[in-house]
């Protein structure tokens, strides 16, 4: 997601957050410092800080508090990515070698632990019980989601509900939390904070569904990994679940994964082609749109403001994402 012009006005605050992120990961050990910095420099959409800032602008905006929350959320996200690459044995992220690939598993583990510790050190400076309770519950639930994802791998019997719960934990919760925490530290009412939480949740669900669609419809160059990689890794996503309603695709899918340890990237090409012949992609986009509409409805009663308009624009932008 490129920074749309509509939230270009956040650039100054985002730069401050970026600088703070850099400061936070200046470890004493040179390799620990380079590993963390390389990850930060590899980019990323910084969608969590953006949502924190926007929610903050709907209330009494105090950059110091907002920055603490935004930086912590991004650090937690970064720590998760470093460890995820060990879990997935991934060599590339955002088209660049992963920390695991560059320095090995052990350094990746230490880097992730270091970054998470920095995040908790930072957030502990906020003396707000509600913030900590929400934050900690979310971290635990995100971890449970990741564990659940392993549990559900290659499980072709899973339901749509299983998938939705998984992506809620994997993606939507942290975005929902970004919106809610921005609201809390900016003094918005409980009701408004909850509305923003729901907005973030719906946007997160929609965003992840589109990500899961793109795994089949985009190119390996854009994805930075082979198309169909999620399925190759045994992750059953929405397009596959919808595709399985088609008898022919279902048959081919189950045949391909009869010996799951020996499925090759080339097997994915045939499966992707067959998936595209079904309604799976279209139906997946429809569910994503459904979530986006709910996101927009959730915030429609907020008074007009530039921040509100940006939240609307982001939801619309996510819905149009096709690469």
């Amino acid at each position, binding site marked *: 997601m490129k920074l749309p012009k509509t939230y270009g006005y956040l650039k100054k605050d985002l730069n401050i957050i970026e600088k703070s992120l850099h400061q936070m990961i200046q470890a004493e050990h040179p*390799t620990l410092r380079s590993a963390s910095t390389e990850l930060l420099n590899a980019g990323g959409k910084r969608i969590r800080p953006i949502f924190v800032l926007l929610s903050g602008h709907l209330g009494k905006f105090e950059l110091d508090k907002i920055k603490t929350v935004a930086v912590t959320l991004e650090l937690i996200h970064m720590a998760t990515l470093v460890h995820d690459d060990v879990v997935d044995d991934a060599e590339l992220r955002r088209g660049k070698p992963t920390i695991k690939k560059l320095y090995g598993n052990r350094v990746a583990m230490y880097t992730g632990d270091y970054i998470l510790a920095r995040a908790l*050190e930072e957030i502990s400076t*906020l003396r707000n019980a509600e913030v900590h309770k929400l934050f900690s519950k979310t971290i635990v639930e995100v971890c449970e989601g990741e*564990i659940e994802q*392993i549990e559900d791998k290659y499980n072709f019997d899973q339901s749509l509900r299983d998938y939705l719960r998984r992506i809620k934990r994997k993606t939507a919760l942290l975005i929902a939390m970004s919106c809610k925490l921005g609201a809390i530290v900016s003094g918005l009412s409980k009701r408004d904070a909850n509305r923003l939480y729901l907005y973030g949740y719906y946007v997160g669900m929609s965003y992840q569904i589109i990500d899961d669609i793109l795994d089949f419809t985009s190119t390996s160059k854009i994805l930075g990994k082979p198309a169909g990689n999620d399925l190759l890794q045994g992750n059953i996503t929405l397009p596959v679940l919808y595709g399985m309603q088609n008898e022919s695709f279902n048959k081919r899918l189950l045949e391909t994964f009869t010996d799951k340890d020996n499925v090759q990237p080339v097997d994915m090409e045939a499966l992707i082609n067959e998936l595209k012949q079904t309604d799976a992609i279209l139906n997946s986009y429809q569910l994503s749109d459904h979530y986006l509409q709910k996101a927009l409805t959730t915030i429609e009663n907020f008074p007009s403001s530039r921040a509100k308009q940006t939240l609307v624009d982001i939801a619309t932008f996510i819905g149009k994402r096709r690469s």
Partner: protein
Amino acid sequence: MDTTYLKKLLQDSIHHKFLEKYIKQPNIDEEKLIILSSLISNNTGLTIIEKEHYIITTMMVQIALDTHETVPVETSEIEHQAVITNQLKVLAGDYYSGLYYLLLSEIEDFDLIHCLAAAIKEINEYKMKLYYREFNTFDEYLFLTEKIDSLLILSVANYVNEHSLDNVSREWLLMNKLMQERESRLNGIIAPIYEQMADLDRSTFLTRIDTMIENKKRTIENLLVNLPEEHTAFKLHVHSKLSEVMYNNISIAEEG
């Protein structure tokens, strides 16, 4: 506080059905649990709930760190089950870290969250030095090992402002480490310390490490003499363990 009860409480707090199906139930470092219990039990400024939370959360952090140490250095497994086990070791460590934060958030102890996080940060700095073998002498190596092993406990000791166990904890934990290394060597496993003394043959190595253990033992015995009365349970525990060490050494010497 009863360590059997604390152990059970800790096991229940970190219980996760799916994790336990694939990875071994985490090892609870009983020596650290006993030290923590002694440090915190007699603190009159804390409620029972706070005491339990302090001990359980610190142990959760230790378990999280220890679990991540079990992630293989190289990813070489191709068998599905082994791959899952290794993946879950990564996620389990993160999960336990999340749990400690959750428990301390419930009692709104933001300063302890900060204290534990700062300790984790520092421990990982030392782990990097150890991983890249940034030491020139055996003493430097032992210094890193000691830091990694005792920093968490000492940070909590500092947090509750109870320093009377600092030195004895440091020495006792390091001595336990040496004994583990010795045990590994006896079982034919090339333990990290042995790697540092790779030029030594088996019997020279054992003599060297026994001398170190013996020295540590004397130091610990001296430190125990001056411990305040409230640490009597800890003192008795260490004395009893030290006599076991003596017994084991004699048995091994007799076996030749």
